[in-house]
């Protein structure tokens, strides 16, 4: 008998064989490191205005050119990554935690509670996301916190539904029944037996959710409903570029590329993880 391989080691072994997944992971790591190091890497202050060099094309001094106020676009892109990182970490973390709790409650609790929560999830999902986001922003005023709140409310049902389905399936498994027969409390069963078993699908869902969240933040900031100026965000860079689209193409080109790269990176990585943890899906493709 070979010694048992740890979960991380076996995941890594399989991931190494999937070039797309590996490329995705590389992108995720590189973007993460560059974003965290933005204050040290950025050649300029992202807010520094240079009125003599407005809407310049890329040059040795300004790698991606300058925007309508002469601010360095490359530095703004780097700092914009910090906004995206903050929003996705906070929004996904909070909505995953709440979705986990509500989903387990629905899956393991009494039937009336399950019905109630499912209707609540469906209600939340019945708004087209952006319409809902706009309505909330109209009420609370544009700010980064509003964006995070909107994303949390919109994401809870997605996590909640997945957790509920998984919990329902686990509930009938023998080891859970045995645990119950041994007299374990519901809380103990949920935390020590259900949670570890739904962690993998939940984390895969989260990694596929990052592009959605980043895209939503950028989208709202593009509409002028996200970060407040002059804070750089990939969306607000695109918004500046949109206003001056006939003067210089560079802000739009520069603001869109990180969004595309990050989206592709997380999607490929997430798909690869899903294939590893759910081989049934892989054989179908």
């Amino acid at each position, binding site marked *: 008998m070979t010694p048992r391989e740890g979960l991380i080691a076996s995941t890594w072994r399989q991931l190494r064989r999937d070039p797309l997944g590996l490329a995705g992971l590389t992108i995720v790591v590189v973007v993460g490191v560059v974003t965290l190091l933005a204050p040290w890497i950025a050649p300029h202050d992202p807010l520094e205005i240079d009125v003599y060099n407005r809407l310049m094309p890329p040059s040795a001094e300004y790698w991606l050119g300058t925007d309508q106020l002469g601010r360095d676009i490359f530095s703004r892109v780097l700092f914009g990554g910090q906004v995206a990182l903050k929003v996705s970490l906070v929004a996904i973390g909070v909505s995953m935690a709440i979705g986990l709790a509500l989903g387990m409650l629905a899956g393991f609790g009494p039937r009336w509670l399950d019905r109630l929560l499912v209707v609540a999830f469906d209600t939340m999902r*019945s708004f*087209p996301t952006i319409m809902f986001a706009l309505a909330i922003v109209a009420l609370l005023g544009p700010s980064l916190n509003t964006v995070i709140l909107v994303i949390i409310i919109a994401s809870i049902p997605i996590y909640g539904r997945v957790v509920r389905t998984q919990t329902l399936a686990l509930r009938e498994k023998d080891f859970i029944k045995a645990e119950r027969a041994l007299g374990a409390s519901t809380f103990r069963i949920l935390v020590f037996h259900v949670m570890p078993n739904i962690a993998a699908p939940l984390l895969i869902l989260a990694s596929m959710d990052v592009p959605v969240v980043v895209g939503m933040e950028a989208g709202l900031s593009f509409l002028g409903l996200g970060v407040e100026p002059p804070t750089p965000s990939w969306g607000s860079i695109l918004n500046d570029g*949109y206003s001056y689209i006939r003067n210089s193409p560079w802000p739009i080109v520069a603001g869109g590329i990180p969004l595309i790269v990050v989206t592709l990176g997380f999607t490929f990585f997430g798909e690869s993880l899903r294939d590893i943890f759910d081989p049934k899906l892989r054989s179908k493709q």
Partner: protein
Amino acid sequence: MLGFIARRTGLSLLIVVLAVSLLFGMIHMIPGDPASVLLGPRATPELRAELNERMGLDQPIVVQLGRFLGNAARGDLGEDVFSNRPVADIVLEQLPFTLMLVFAAIGAATLIGVPLGCFSAIRRNSLLDRIAGILSVGFIAVPSFVVALYALLLLSVELRWFPAIGAGETGDWASMAHHLVLPALALGLGWVGYIARLVRASMLEVMGENHIRTARAFGLPERVVIGRYALRIAILPTVTILGLGIGTMLSGALFAEIVFSRPGVGKLLYEAVMTRNYPVVMGTVLVTTVFFVAATLVSDIVNALLDPRLRTQGDRR
């Protein structure tokens, strides 16, 4: 089956009512009453009281909600606070533009996605299949407003192949179609990937079935086997998913409308949000939510018609 449809329709209605109540409640929880926002800081108390009375804002919130829902059921969504025109008229005026965009996008996505998925399934694991697979994921993942901005920058501003602004002259079909190309493409691109993957997966499944082998054994040409026997079945899941697509695309349409300065429900909502025109915000969100829920309902019912196993799924426990 009738029971299933009735249950689903009832649930959808409940969801719409709940969603609207939720939004209504939130609008009324915010600090600062609409009257002072609308009339500005110099309004006299009498003016404010008059406006509150005209808009029914002096009533308890439950009464207001009941009245709003009752009026909405009769097609009355209140009045625009600036122009005093009925909100229902304003929304209905903009709706055709958005629907045209959404259907054009779905049409384009189907026309590109189905052959792509079909081809990938037939030439499974070929280089083209791999490339199509990667492109599909890429198309799905990239935010549609980034696609819209790049298309605008490259094809309208730089190359000047397509107009950048508006929906074209009403009645002039050529000009309207010309204005529709880029927004529809930006909106539909993600669905190209989605449909291609779906068609590919179900084609692979169908191709392994007995009736396909029988058709081949009869010596029918491969073209007929695939076109008339395999694709016909393999396309069913796509048809049902399109119902959901129409609903989801309403969100994406907002960006396409703003980027290309097209009239439409999304642009209407955006402008109403910017001017804090609450009746219009409520009306637009209500109409799009009803659309979204209805699209989901229809595709659920079609799904259940095709696959009887789904009909009882709600009562699994």
